[in-house]
């Protein structure tokens, strides 16, 4: 019998996955023994959601993209029951998709989009919980740490600290009780790697945490998950319940005497709580403000006890490393950045979604070979890597290798894996302003330079975007950037100026165009645009009615005209026009 699997990660659901699933349930009523219906997490091809896979008894099959409830009937009749694939809806085997999977190495995402994340049995069937069994029964905690050190795994949460070393420090720290924390706060807007892993393969993260706990000698743990990720929270709670029922969490795990438990804490919407000391304060029920380090959490963390904190993706790598050996992991990547990295691809790139590639791949390879290049074949301008703490790397440098050594040389950071692709229609000043407005709003207010300095920088950027900037502003931005970096306690302030610093470095001419020519070359900054009406105009008078300053004149059914002196560039005419007749440039 064939199996029909629907991708129901947040991306799939947003695209209408649940409606497709319901339509399939209806079909199942009509054909009670016609097929097996299953759900899975995120395959990574967010740009083709809703994705439905049809597999036959031997496990081979193919993937359909952009499935709607209306298309379900034909898929069932022709493919599932009729054995005839529908070529025009196929994603797999579609030559246009060449390179998406071929160029990936899937370690973290090994099960994502393959197994049902709600079923612990499916996880076990693909080798799940073998790694913790191996560790508990045939490895000492020291050997586990040694294996992780051999793998060269570095923290995937942003800073890239060697994971084995962190474990070693926490293990060596004096103090009876120790904690394990999993950082699932993922606050970087535009990043969704951790969410997809939690939704699609929660057990891999739990197993990684168990192995860390055994290595370090911890018996208690929390996963701190963004409250904006309800599906991930639900998946985690379900997976933890299943583990407790199977004796994989609790007392005397697998009969070895190992004791461990995991709880989920929901965040409450504060980006700074992704910073480890702020995260700990938040779990303790306080305002999530970072504190000075040292002492590092490894010495004094949650409730003052030695605490190991790692990112979701870091933990998800661990079971694979234990099963396949640290050397197998280290075979991928570069000299000092081993293994793979998951990237959330978004922006103006054709294939948006989740990809896992070996460290050391170039920006060009990831944008063009894996993700199919720029939408509408527009001109590739830059990538933004590292989110609000990161920077913009121009297309001219896109042969640079993505790893912990080379990315920081550009002024950006590796960050957690958000990669936003920008084309000629993206204004770099506006992008800098966007990220700064984010960090400015999220600054916890503890350090003066971060609190007030980012506000001043934002004001300057807003002025420039409105065409009211001066060349002195650029020097002030440079100076403020240096001061904020030097005088902030945590990574938020230390890295907040990065988007401004990198755009100033690589796209200074765009700033100058805004200031001197009063032009936005990408046609984004509204106050610097000129609105005109072209001959697509049908004379429907909708724009004239909408214009708050009566700047638009013209007879009904005649082409309309905008008097520039009266125009306040509010853009209303542009948004109301149904004929693409209003042009902004």
């Amino acid at each position, binding site marked *: 019998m064939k199996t029909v699997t629907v991708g129901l990660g947040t991306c799939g659901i947003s695209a209408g996955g649940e409606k497709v699933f319901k339509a399939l349930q209806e079909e199942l009523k009509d054909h009670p023994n016609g097929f097996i219906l299953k759900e899975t997490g995120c395959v990574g091809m967010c740009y083709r959601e809703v994705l439905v896979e049809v597999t036959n008894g031997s496990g081979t099959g193919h993937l359909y993209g952009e499935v709607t409830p209306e298309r379900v009937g034909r898929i069932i009749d022709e493919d599932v029951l009729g054995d005839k694939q529908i070529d025009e809806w196929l994603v797999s085997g579609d030559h246009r998709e060449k390179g998406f999977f071929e160029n990936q190495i899937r370690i973290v995402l090994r099960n994502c989009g393959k197994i049902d994340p709600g079923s612990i049995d499916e996880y076990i069937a693909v080798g799940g919980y073998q790694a913790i069994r191996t560790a508990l029964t045939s490895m000492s905690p020291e050997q586990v740490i040694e294996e992780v050190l051999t793998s060269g795994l570095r923290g995937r949460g942003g800073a890239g600290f060697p994971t084995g070393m962190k474990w070693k420090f926490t293990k060596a720290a004096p103090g009876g009780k120790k904690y394990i924390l999993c950082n699932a706060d993922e606050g970087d807007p535009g990043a969704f790697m951790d969410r997809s892993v939690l939704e699609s393969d929660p057990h891999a993260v739990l197993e990684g945490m168990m192995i860390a706990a055994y290595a370090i000698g911890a018996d208690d743990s929390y996963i701190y998950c963004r409250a904006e990720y309800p599906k991930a929270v639900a998946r985690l709670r379900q997976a933890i319940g299943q583990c407790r029922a199977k004796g994989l969490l609790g007392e005397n795990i697998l009969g070895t005497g190992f004791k461990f438990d995991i709880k989920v804490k929901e*965040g409450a919407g504060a980006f700074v709580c992704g910073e480890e000391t702020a995260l700990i304060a938040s779990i303790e029920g306080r305002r999530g403000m970072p504190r000075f380090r040292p002492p590092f959490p490894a010495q004094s963390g949650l409730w003052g006890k030695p605490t190991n904190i790692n990112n979701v993706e870091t933990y998800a790598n661990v079971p694979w490393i234990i099963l396949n050996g640290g050397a197998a992991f280290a075979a991928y990547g570069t000299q000092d950045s081993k293994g793979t990295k998951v990237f959330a691809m978004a922006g103006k790139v054709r294939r948006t979604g989740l990809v896992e590639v070996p460290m050391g791949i170039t920006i060009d390879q990831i944008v063009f070979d894996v993700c199919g290049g720029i939408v509408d074949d527009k001109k590739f301008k830059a990538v933004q890597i590292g989110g609000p703490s990161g920077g913009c790397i121009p297309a001219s440098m896109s042969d640079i290798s993505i790893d912990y050594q080379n990315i920081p040389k550009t002024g950006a950071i590796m960050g957690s894996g958000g990669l936003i692709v920008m084309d000629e229609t993206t204004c770099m000043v506006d992008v800098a302003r966007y990220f700064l407005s984010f960090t400015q709003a999220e600054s916890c207010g503890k350090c003066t330079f971060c609190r007030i300095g980012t506000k001043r920088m934002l004001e300057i950027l807003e002025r420039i975007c409105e065409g009211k900037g001066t060349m002195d502003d650029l020097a002030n931005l440079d100076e403020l950037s240096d001061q904020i970096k030097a005088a902030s306690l945590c990574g938020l302030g230390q890295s907040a100026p990065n988007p401004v610093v990198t755009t100033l470095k690589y796209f200074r001419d765009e700033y100058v165009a805004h200031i001197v020519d009063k032009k936005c070359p990408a046609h984004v900054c509204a106050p610097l645009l000129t609105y005109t009406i072209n001959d697509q105009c049908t004379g429907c008078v909708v724009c004239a009615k909408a214009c708050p300053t009566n700047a638009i004149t013209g007879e009904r059914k005649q082409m309309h005209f905008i008097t520039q002196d009266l125009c306040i560039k509010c*853009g209303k005419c542009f948004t109301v026009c149904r004929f693409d007749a209003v042009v902004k440039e």
Partner: protein
Amino acid sequence: MSDQQTNEFKPFNVDVWKFDGHAGALIPLLQSAQDTYGYVSEKAIDYISHVTGIPSADIYGVVTFYAQFRTKPLGKHIIKVCNGTACHVNGAKGVYEVIQDELTITYDETTDDGEFSLLSVACIGCCSLAPVITIDGETYGRLNAQKLRKIIRDAKRQARDQAKAAAGEVTA
């Protein structure tokens, strides 16, 4: 606070505190209050203070630190505009302008009739559909001005019809 007062105020689930008895339970308690009432009222803060012994001022400090907590009730329908990076690059500002134009409210405001509240969120998580909004949890993606205006007008009409129907029931 007297028992009498606690009785007047329909208490929400405070089990987390019973299990934990730790200051760490404060945020889950506030989340539980907000789940029950839609916002964290002054009464809820007093109640939590009474149960936990944490001073109300400290609790208020925690409430105002986190973006998730609201101290005012929301409208009946919630419109969330995604302002994640992908949506920003794909025109989230235009999306906001259309909604502002239709509903005459800005972020964190509620329409005078109490029907719609407008919120900005960092990332809904379907960057491939950018720009997106959600109305009462339902996602609308790949928006442009025309499409969005129609969606908002439909939502307004629906809300009006529902309100009329409800009023009809009351008078009937």
